[in-house]
């Protein structure tokens, strides 16, 4: 939904992952903590499984003469307990019991909980209400209290404790799985399966379940440690394993009575529980990291306040002295894994005061990254500005310090983004957000700022501005929200407004209004606009000049009417020809075959050569420069179209 162009292009850059398994396993093993956890876990499990085979004394045989031996005593590596039983033997046999109980409880809870969640989420309606009310009831009890009540009723004992722990964890699975199932059931592929003639049961278990399974596994791996802790807890209280049978919890409970005289009797089993649970949690986190697609793509990495600028970057001198913004040789890269994606590969552009320049391109062309690089709003990691300069009048934006960039953001250079719902903070009123934008640059009293905010809303033609200041973004329509965003961009008399697809998320009638508004405002305020879009129609409506981007570089630039009427670059020509035009229904749509190159593996020569009918041998070698092509025009092509109209 809130897919920004930058994120979109980053997402597109991901190489298709080959078949899930091998890489998943490799990822897991790359995680040292998870591997350590797995190693410890395997060792513990092997020891527990091998208990009958190991040369251990009988764990339940008492020997009063040998009671409370300290660890490293002869014949008793970990000493003995109050009844003279060998602690090492009891520890291994106890671990076996604890593991078995924890695992069984997890499996029971996962099975019933997931089943309830799947059915409730998929069926919806009354079934859902009925099942989830039941689950809510169980969840209304403080966690372990219900287990206590169940054990109180059934009587103490290991099996009863197991049931109790399993029952109280069912809601946890049910809730989690239901949430996921609801999301999946509304996905289009479920409707597609229904239209393919599949029955409800076949869809639930054949289409939905495979997608839910990773979540079930994640939930299991993160809860099993907890279940082991809880069963140990019940045993510790004397409500679980009953003598002579011992699990880790009851060993700890026994040791507690002699804590002051023989601490090792309680410390050792506690340590074992800790090691077991810790190793499971480490491994579980690793599994979660691998299976959770958000974590896999590094999406949970925190972007820093400003895009990193490479140390080795070489500044470029200004080229257009009269311009308010002059970008020279901009290179922005994304470093993902071992790959370097050249999202922007050497872009030059300039803006005169009051001018509107459109940057047009398809997704992945680097148009948004270009725009977001200027004020350092490309997320780092993975983004990085590696070369070039952006001159805002006399200052190079890539050379100034962070505080200066902060002062310029929202003041001299402001932004309008694509989706006006996600770009406004949902928890603050419109007034809060507007006054904040004002006061960040001009210290004043709140009442003064309120007046200024009201004035701004009036400027963007919002009726009842004083009332609207008090509302939250979700209470406004999309068009209104975008007006608010524009008001915010105008708050401090910006010299340059960077508008990144500001009308793409809007309906066509609302789009027309917003475009008119932007056009009128820039004429009133003499602000220059850098306008990012994929739509030539929108460009025609508001832009004086246009720059067409392909694979991270500008391939053609010039005055809007001229470029649209007589495109010089074959890509521009094709891009115009493949879009239906209103009023010309009979027009043949000339599709561009093939796909744009991925920017981590650009071909030599022209990036468009592979899809171009005019390409010749010289197009596939060397660097093709952006060459002047008549007055105020430039094109990056060795064999440009000459004068043929786009529609010819």
């Amino acid at each position, binding site marked *: 939904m*809130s897919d*920004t162009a930058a994120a979109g292009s980053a997402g597109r850059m991901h190489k298709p992952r080959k078949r899930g398994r091998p890489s998943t396993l490799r990822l897991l093993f790359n995680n040292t903590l998870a591997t350590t956890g797995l190693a410890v876990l395997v060792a513990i499990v092997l020891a527990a499984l091998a208990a009958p085979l190991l040369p251990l004394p009988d764990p339940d045989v008492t020997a009063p003469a040998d009671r409370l031996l300290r660890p490293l005593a002869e014949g008793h590596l970990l000493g003995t307990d109050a009844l003279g039983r060998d602690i090492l033997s009891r520890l291994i046999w106890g671990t076996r019991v604890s593991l078995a109980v924890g695992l069984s409880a997890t499996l029971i809870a996962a099975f019933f909980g997931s089943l309830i969640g799947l059915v409730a989420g998929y069926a919806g309606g009354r079934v859902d209400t009925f099942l989830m*009310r039941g689950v*809510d*009831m169980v969840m*209304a*009890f*403080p*966690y*372990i*209290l219900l287990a206590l*009540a*169940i*054990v*109180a*009723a*059934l*009587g*103490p004992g290991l099996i009863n404790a197991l049931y109790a722990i399993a029952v109280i964890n069912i809601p946890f699975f049910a809730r989690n799985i239901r949430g996921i199932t609801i999301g999946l059931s509304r996905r289009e592929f479920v409707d597609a399966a229904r239209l393919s003639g599949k029955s409800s049961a076949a869809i639930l278990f054949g289409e939905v379940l495979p997608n839910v399974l990773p979540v079930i596994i994640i939930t299991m791996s993160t809860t099993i440690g907890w279940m082991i802790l809880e069963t140990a*807890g019940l045993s*510790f*209280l*004397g*409500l679980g394993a009953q003598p002579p049978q011992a699990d880790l*919890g009851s060993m*700890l409970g026994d040791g507690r009575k002699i*804590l002051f005289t023989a601490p090792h009797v309680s*410390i050792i089993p*506690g340590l074992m*529980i*800790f090691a077991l649970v*810790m190793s499971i*949690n480490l491994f579980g986190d690793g599994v979660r990291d691998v299976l959770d697609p958000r974590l896999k793509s590094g*999406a*949970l*990495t*925190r*972007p820093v*306040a400003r895009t990193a600028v490479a140390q080795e970057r070489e500044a470029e001198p200004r080229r257009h002295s009269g311009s308010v913004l002059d970008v020279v040789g901009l290179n922005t890269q994304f470093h993902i894994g071992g790959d370097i994606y050249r999202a922007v590969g050497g872009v030059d552009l300039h803006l005169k005061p009051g001018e509107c320049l459109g940057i047009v391109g398809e997704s992945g062309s680097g148009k948004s990254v270009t725009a977001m690089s200027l*004020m350092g*709003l490309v*997320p780092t990691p993975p983004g990085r500005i590696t070369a070039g300069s952006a001159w805002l009048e006399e200052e190079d934006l890539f050379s100034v310090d962070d505080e200066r960039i*902060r*002062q310029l*953001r*929202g*003041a001299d250079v402001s*932004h309008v*983004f694509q*989706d006006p719902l*996600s*770009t406004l*903070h*949902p*928890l603050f009123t419109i007034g809060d957000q507007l006054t*904040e*934008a004002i006061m*960040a640059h001009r210290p004043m009293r709140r009442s003064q700022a309120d007046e200024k905010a009201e004035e701004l809303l009036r400027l963007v033609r919002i009726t009842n501005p004083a009332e609207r200041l008090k509302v*939250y973004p979700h209470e406004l329509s999309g068009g209104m929200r975008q007006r608010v965003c524009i008001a*915010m961009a105008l708050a401090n008399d910006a010299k340059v407004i960077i508008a990144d697809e500001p009308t793409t998320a809007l309906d066509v009638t609302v789009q027309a209004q917003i475009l008119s508004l932007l056009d009128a405002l820039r004429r009133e305020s003499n602000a220059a606009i850098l306008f990012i879009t994929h739509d030539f129609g929108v460009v025609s409506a508001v832009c004086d000049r246009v720059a067409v981007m392909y694979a991270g570089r500008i391939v053609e630039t010039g005055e809007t009417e001229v470029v649209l009427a007589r495109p010089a670059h074959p890509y521009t020509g094709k891009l115009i020809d493949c879009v239906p035009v209103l009023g010309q229904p009979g027009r043949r749509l000339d599709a561009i075959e093939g796909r744009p190159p991925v920017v981590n593996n650009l071909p030599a020569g022209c990036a468009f050569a592979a899809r171009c009918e005019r390409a010749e041998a010289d197009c596939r070698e060397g660097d093709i420069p952006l060459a002047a092509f008549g007055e105020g025009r430039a094109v990056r092509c060795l064999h440009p179209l000459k004068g043929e109209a786009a529609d010819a």
Partner: protein
Amino acid sequence: MAAYIAKRLLAAIPVLFGLSIIVFLIMAMIPGDPATAILGSYATPENVAKLNADLGLDKSLPQQYLIWLGNILQGDFGRSYALNRPVLDEVLERFSATLILAGTALVLCSILGLLAGVVSAVRQYGLADKAITVLVLVGISTPSFWLGLLLILVFAVKIRLFPASGMYAIYGGGDLPDLLHHLFLPALTLAVVATGVIARLTRTAMLEVLRQDYIRTARAKGLTERRVIYRHAFKAALVSVIPVIGIQAGFVLGGAVYIETVFQWPGIGSMLVNAISTRDLLLVQGGVVVVAAAYVLFNLAADVVQTLLDPRLR
């Protein structure tokens, strides 16, 4: 807002109702004949029949439930046979001790958890983040009852900084400093796990929020990074962490069972464990009902706070 709170309060009634049914059913699940269980196997059949009639056990299950519910609503939870006093008196007395312990732990884990989570997110992959991540993992993997024992061993036995057990000193205690002195170790132990969980979720929530478009907007406006993180990001993250704190309250209340046993804190948890061992089922039942009801109300409060923070929920 008042209307919303009233609505939520009304919605809590069916939950409390369902809760009472679950408790009643669990108690009805008890195998064997309760009268025989109470009177012992040497009781005469007449005595058993009389007790059954006294307890209303000769009636149908729904009838029994209604009578039971009626009694509870009037505050009559029956008498504890082991303590020979009204269940409600004992439960309320014990519950106040638990509230002190659990309340302190909850405040502690909320503050520490939020703090650690925010620091961890802001310094992602830094030293502080790594340290906190490891500490959190250790925290949620440590059995709290064992941790309590270790703390007693170190701080009460070896260096004698804090008392090992109880709520007040037997001689000359009873004032606030004495209470705090006794409270420190158990409250800390009880808070450890919940701190870990809250810290973890706060970190995830902060990271999630920090990549939202509105954070980019805040930066594009020229706000200071401090303001972006502590005003814009933290408020949004808090909205998703508050329900977690509500759930953690349940874990803390439950965890009090272990901690009160380890530190011999005279709260409802240790009362329940004793009552279960002595099969004092009316006492168990009363304790469970009161704690669960309190928990429902607490979650209600968490809901209301969340709604106050997030206008979209109104």
